[in-house]
């Protein structure tokens, strides 16, 4: 699952980039808002969001991404 992902390390935990995105998604945000906050290219954010949703750290509703319980635990 975490094979060659930028935001999930091989042990399944968020990478430094993954953690930045999780921090930015503590409030529901669009990919564009997260990219703007983190000053990252939008394509990288979209890819990272996909990784983090797949790993259960984020969820998506109506185009906005927000952190899950699992995501909050990972940031502790």
């Amino acid at each position, binding site marked *: 699952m975490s*094979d*060659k*992902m*930028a*935001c999930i390390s091989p042990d399944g935990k968020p990478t430094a980039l993954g953690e930045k995105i999780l921090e930015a998604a503590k409030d529901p945000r669009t990919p564009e808002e997260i990219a703007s906050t983190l000053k990252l*290219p*939008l*394509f*990288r954010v*979209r*890819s*990272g969001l*996909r*990784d983090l949703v797949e790993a259960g750290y984020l969820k998506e509703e109506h185009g906005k991404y927000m952190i899950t319980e699992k995501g909050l635990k990972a940031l502790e």
Partner: protein
Amino acid sequence: MNMEREQESESVRLPRLGEKAPEFEAVTTQGKLKLSDFKGSWLILFSHPADFTPVCTTEFIGFAEIFDELQSRNVQLMGLSIDSVYSHISWVRNIEEKFGVKIPFPVIADLNKEVASLYGMVMPGESKTETSRCVFVIDPDGILRAMIYYPLTTGRNMDEILRIIDALQTTDKHHVATPANWRPGEPVIVPTPPTQEAAEERLKQGFDCKDWYFCKKKLDE
């Protein structure tokens, strides 16, 4: 019969201008990326024959040098070769160490030739194991707008790649065409009138015309 099958298996399928660029998901030096991740920005997808080769190294340095210029035009860059992601990582680190140039764009590790096949990047007459030097310009809607193919022996001209971007963006913004060797700031071509009536009108419209079909104008930037 066997020869026919051999020719068929060697045939190269090229994508077509004006159509949706083929979607893909690929492992890159910046994680797994889909073509659709670039929606909303222009993308230059380019292939190179192999990592740790001299012409490709000069090209990567060239692409890195125009990276900021591309960014200012809302253009992203993505490289590709039939090498592993570890080879790519090692090579871009080597370029930084030996040439002092950081490679800021992702590079696809297309070991199974999946993306190369979708885009017709392998030219069997040149090499069956390496991608040729291809450039695909994809617009923010995912439409393929330009393609350039160079042979293995000839490094690309970064200036021309920037010029193509400027020309396409000018065309989109002003609904004009651009003449040979056009540069930003120079007169552009007014689209040829499609009817006899429009042709008669054309000469009265105040453009710089040699004839009804050949009119130029300056753009008000």
